[in-house]
């Protein structure tokens, strides 16, 4: 008895249908839904971080202002830094873009571990709520986002502020580690037939690099945070010099994580750029192998440069020279990519629609930020400018320019795919230009005022330093940036309700997500695609053959919640797996972990131990149901 294509696709839809209503969202394991949950949650945190930034900028608009006092200002710059890095950029790139797009780009139906993915999100959300409850209750972290000891020790910071810091970051780190594990195994094992590593989209190389970076870097931060928690609450002496400890130990462990972290922030954005440029130039990326390895190299070498954040700590120059040397060369992979992007744009037929405008802006801002970064590798220069506004200028050009601009560009680029609607182009372009003007007005004067000696993290400054006019311009730039962001999101919201239908492929995009409907069905691909290049949507022959296989009912895998598994290096098919569907265990497990963190703030160790047993029971429940045998 033959079944028609429609019957097979209907069966697929029934197999993959999501539970309705709020319960469906709370128990979802679908990577697209989880990606959207991350998207909205991170936007809320982005808004919070933006309000913190504007509050600080308003306080600094003129000398000796009194909008906020020093205590609150300390919490503002600390929580702003933490929020933007750990609760906006990392989850927006790996959690939202990575979750939604990586399975689509490799030709899979979900990530490798769907329930783990849900767990990542709920822990992430819990960690953010944890941080902000801390802030609103007057216990916001207040020793900076890198929280140096001895300032962060119990002696100098006796409240609960640093417990909120350590525990929120430990939770956030667990979430990120789980996401990175999921992305790595998905990229390794769930690629479509034919997708050997030399045929994998550059976006996936970028996310592989970022995920490997997170995996190797986060344990260093975890160790550091655990030591700090123990020093403050159990009376250990890891950082206590009087009892054999070392304050520099905090910095070494922190920056061994912290420097790879900043590459982890920008590498996914590089991945977004490497997809937008081919789409809007209709040309393959020049020097594909070099761009692919550059994405991995920048993270790999980036692990070796940590002490360039410590050039002013008194370490001997004969040691620091290693870090200066490696820092000099870590620029090279980024430069390779900048050349590849630029020449691809020039050699192609660029259509400067909003996504490509944001990428052009990103390249400009990244180069400016990169140039000041190179200046820092000169140890004497660094020793003069460390802890001044020059540093703030550098990293905001990099973070806002090289991470946030591509994120905005990516939002526009994939908006039609996720919503099925086209955004309005003209307001999109206007939002870009407002943001370009705003961010350059905001961050460029910081170079000058930093060289004029203005330290970072000061809540006010005297009138006779000559810093006032620069700060005024920066604050105006900050408000213009805020307006640009509002225009951007207003455009997306209005487009969602009023935009024209987008169809499968409004851009003639290069990758597999453009070969399926917008928004994608739950199962992503009705028949598993076969690929022969990193630009599978441009390989019309392959896509026609997919259509024929679907018509013949081949490779539909509708007997369960099924996903093909591939071999690591060359993408050969090795089996079929049955994937989990919706489950309550992830949100329950996240809840228990959050409770553990909460009781640890108030040092209730016995209760925490009891909750650990509850956690084990939850994990038992999680593993009580086994997948169908194939």
């Amino acid at each position: 008895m033959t079944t028609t294509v429609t019957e097979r696709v209907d069966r697929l839809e029934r197999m993959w249908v999501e539970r309705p209503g709020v319960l469906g969202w709370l128990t979802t394991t679908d990577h697209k839904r989880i990606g959207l949950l991350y998207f909205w949650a991170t936007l809320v945190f982005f808004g919070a971080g933006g309000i913190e930034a504007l509050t600080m900028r308003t306080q600094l608009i003129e000398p000796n202002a009194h909008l906020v006092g020093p205590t609150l200002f300390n919490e503002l710059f600390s929580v702003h830094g933490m929020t933007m890095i750990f609760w906006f950029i990392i989850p927006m790139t790996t959690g939202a873009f990575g979750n939604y797009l990586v399975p689509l780009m490799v030709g899979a139906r979900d990530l490798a571990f769907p329930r783990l993915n849900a767990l990542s999100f709920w822990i992430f959300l819990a960690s953010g709520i944890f941080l902000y409850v801390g802030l609103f209750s007057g216990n916001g972290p207040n020793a900076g986002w890198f929280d140096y000891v001895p300032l962060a020790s119990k002696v100098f910071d006796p409240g609960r502020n640093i417990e909120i810091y350590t525990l929120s970051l430990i939770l956030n780190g667990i979430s990120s580690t789980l996401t990175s594990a999921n992305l790595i195994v998905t990229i390794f094992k769930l690629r479509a037939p034919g997708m050997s590593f030399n045929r994998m989209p550059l976006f996936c190389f970028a996310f592989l690099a970022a995920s490997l970076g997170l995996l190797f870097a986060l344990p260093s931060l975890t160790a550091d945070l655990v030591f700090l928690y123990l020093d403050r609450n159990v009376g250990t002496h890891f950082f206590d010099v009087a009892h054999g400890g070392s304050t520099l130990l905090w910095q070494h462990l922190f920056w061994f994580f912290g420097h790879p972290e900043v590459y982890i922030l920008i590498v996914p954005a590089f991945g977004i750029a490497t997809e937008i440029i081919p789409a809007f130039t209709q040309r393959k990326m020049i020097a594909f192998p070099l761009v692919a390895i550059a994405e991995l190299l920048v993270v790999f070498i980036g692990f070796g440069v940590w002490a360039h954040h410590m050039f002013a700590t008194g370490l001997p120059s004969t040691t620091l020279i290693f870090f200066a040397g490696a820092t000099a060369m870590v620029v090279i992979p980024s430069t390779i990519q900048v050349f590849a992007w630029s020449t691809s744009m020039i050699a192609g037929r660029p259509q400067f629609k909003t996504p490509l405008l944001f990428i052009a802006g990103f390249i400009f801002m990244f180069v400016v930020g990169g140039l000041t970064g190179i200046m820092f590798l000169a140890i004497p220069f660094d020793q003069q400018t460390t802890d001044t506004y020059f540093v703030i200028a550098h990293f905001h050009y990099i973070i806002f320019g090289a991470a946030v601009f591509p994120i905005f560009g990516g939002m526009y680029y994939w908006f039609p795919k996720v919503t099925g609607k086209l955004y309005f182009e003209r307001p999109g372009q206007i939002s870009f230009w407002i943001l370009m003007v705003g961010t350059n007005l905001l961050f460029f004067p910081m170079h000058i005022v930093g060289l004029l000696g203005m330290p970072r993290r000061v809540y006010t400054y005297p009138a006779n330093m000559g810093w006032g006019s620069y700060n005024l311009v920066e604050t105006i730039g900050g408000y213009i940036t805020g307006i640009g962001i509002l225009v951007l999101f207003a455009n997306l919201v209005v487009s969602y309700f009023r935009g024209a239908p987008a169809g499968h492929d409004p851009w003639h995009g290069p990758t597999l997500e453009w070969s399926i409907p917008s928004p994608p069905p739950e199962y992503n691909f009705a028949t598993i695609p076969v690929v022969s290049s990193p630009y599978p949507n441009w390989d019309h022959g392959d896509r026609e053959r997919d259509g024929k296989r679907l018509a013949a009912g081949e490779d539909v895998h509708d007997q369960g919640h099924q996903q093909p598994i591939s071999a690591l290096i060359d993408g050969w098919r090795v089996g079929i797996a049955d994937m989990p569907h919706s489950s309550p265990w992830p949100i329950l497990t996240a809840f228990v972990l959050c409770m553990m963190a909460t009781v640890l703030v108030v040092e209730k160790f016995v209760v925490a131990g009891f909750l650990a047993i509850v956690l084990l029971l939850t994990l038992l429940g999680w593993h009580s149901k086994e997948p169908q045998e194939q």
Partner: protein
Amino acid sequence: MSEITAETLDPRARERFPIGWWGAAILIVSESVLFGMMIGTYFYLRFRNLRWPPEGVPKPHVLVPLVVLGCLIATAVPMQLASIAGRAGRLRPTRWLLVLSALVGAGYFGVEVWQFTQDLHTSTPQRDAYDSIYYTLLAADHAHVAVAVLLVLWLLWKLRHGFTRYRTTALRAIVFFWHAVIVLTIAVILTTLSPSFT
């Protein structure tokens, strides 16, 4: 033109490492880096202190920890044999080998906890940086051994109804984790005992 079709199952390629095994591998990488950082911390602090251990703290006992470490290392054999037997579908030998390993592992854990509490009578983690890193490293390692033993017990409970592909993958993943815990324990024990070797 693609040379690979969806039906191409490369006869050389069999699923050597299922995704469950990869999950365990990623976890092991993460935990190894964590222990690497803690061991690095131990030596960083060690080379910043003239006396190590500090005045008044005895050097660690060597005999009992090394003997029980030897017993733990020895469990690598039955665990690996259990993995091989499991992949061959031989249930009874698999279960007995797992029981043996779990018993030795639990015994190791028990002795180490006893040693830990004995050590606390002479010196506490609150005394000095040496004690802080000594006790923290050991506590972290013992926790990992405990988790490994619990995983084996869970697996034994699952195996009461025989093998499935899921349980075989779980067996391989848990055996891999067990081996990793042995390697990490060797590194931790040698580190914490290092003052007694010099």
